């Protein structure tokens, strides 16, 4: 049985380590915030200028001056610090954030990521995504394995790139892949969702990969 969104996020949460500073993207990555292992000290980075993001406020306690990068009302916690956008991206580009867990539209077999736009359809923008993939030393992409029957793990991204050879780990509803940058093939299947077999993964994956299950 493939993982559901919550289970994908739970698998991503296992990438966290005590003391980590973590940036979570919008969508499935946001769910990781509620799945941090007990006793682990994790500070969440919000690109709009905050470290130490707290949960949503109780009804009536929202503050328009306190939002996350998704523009949602949030809260602060005792460890919180606020800073400006320049400092925020200094942290990101400077490699100070330990890990970023991001959504994806496509991941290529060399670890390229496309996750910011579909030409002609979206007028959004990359926001901080390009900075994150360029600056954060470990990039985990969480996404559904396929969209409308098409594999999102592709030989080459057809959508505009967010970054080239930037992804370290891909977690989908079917499986987990490590990206060994510079190797060919770079994608290594390291884990399967329960009751999913390699044949099913192969059938749903356009990208070349090697099996490395243990």
């Amino acid at each position, binding site marked *: 049985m493939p993982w559901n969104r919550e289970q994908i996020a739970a698998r991503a949460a296992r990438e966290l380590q005590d003391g980590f500073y973590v940036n979570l993207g919008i969508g499935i990555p946001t769910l990781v915030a509620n799945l941090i292992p007990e006793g682990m000290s994790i500070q969440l980075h919000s690109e709009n200028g905050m470290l130490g993001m707290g949960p949503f406020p109780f009804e009536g306690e*929202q503050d*328009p001056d306190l939002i*996350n990068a998704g523009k949602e009302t949030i809260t602060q916690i005792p460890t919180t610090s606020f*800073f400006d*956008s320049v400092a925020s991206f200094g942290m990101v580009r400077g490699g100070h954030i330990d890990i970023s867990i991001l959504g994806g539209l496509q991941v290529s077999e060399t670890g390229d990521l496309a996750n910011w736009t579909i030409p002609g359809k979206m007028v959004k923008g990359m926001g901080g995504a390009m900075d994150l993939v360029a600056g954060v030393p470990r990039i985990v992409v969480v996404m559904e394995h396929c969209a409308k029957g098409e594999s999102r793990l592709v030989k080459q991204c057809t959508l505009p790139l967010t*970054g080239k050879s930037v992804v370290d780990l891909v977690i989908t509803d079917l499986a987990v892949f490590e990206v060994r940058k510079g190797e060919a093939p770079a994608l290594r299947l390291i884990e399967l969702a329960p009751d999913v077999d390699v044949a099913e993964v192969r059938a749903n994956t356009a990208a070349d990969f090697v099996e490395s299950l243990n």
Partner: protein
Amino acid sequence: MANKVYPNAVTAVADQLRDGMTILSGGFGLCGIPDALIEAIRASGVRNLTIVTNNPGIDGIGIGRLVETRQVAKLIASYAGENATFARQYLAGEVEMEYNPQGTLAERIRAGGAGIPAFYTPTGVGTDIARGKETREFNGRPCLLEHGIFGDLALVHAWKGDTEGNLLYRLTARNFNPVMATAAKVTIAEVEQLVQPGAIDADHIMTPGIFVKRIVELPRVEKHIEKLTVRQRA
């Protein structure tokens, strides 16, 4: 004695506007936006503006005000996802948009304000935004050359300000405001509370008065929430 305090947003911006100028605006989403100053710009009717801001707010609020009236010719931003009017104008080719990665945008403005004409960054290498930009390797890593941004006018929203122009921002309403304040010929601040010099602890000042030419106290502060998210009490 030099006086920076103006009675309202309209008089503060009045003699600073001309068609085709470049205006920087603080704010992220609807948080910390200099909305009263933007409204004064809307009311002035100045046209053909280049706006530098992280994102153009939503329809009719923040920079969205100037999008609705078609006063914006070009937007330099990292995101325009929540403004339907802008999306329509953009897809119809009626407004130009220069996408910048958010960190690159922040850094370009910071460079403009800090006298750095250009810098190299790893962000965006191999993507569409690298097109036409010089690529150069440092320590084996390709980087893009990016240029500083300096505007004619910067608009910022602060929580407290003193008559010297020293500013304090609150929580995540800080965002792009401090950097915008550094990167224009003239910076105008709207503040929720105007206080006397010395009322703000000198160690806590986030924007020193040197960057602020004019300051306006808001008669009333209206703040917007773009996405209200709450949790239930147990």
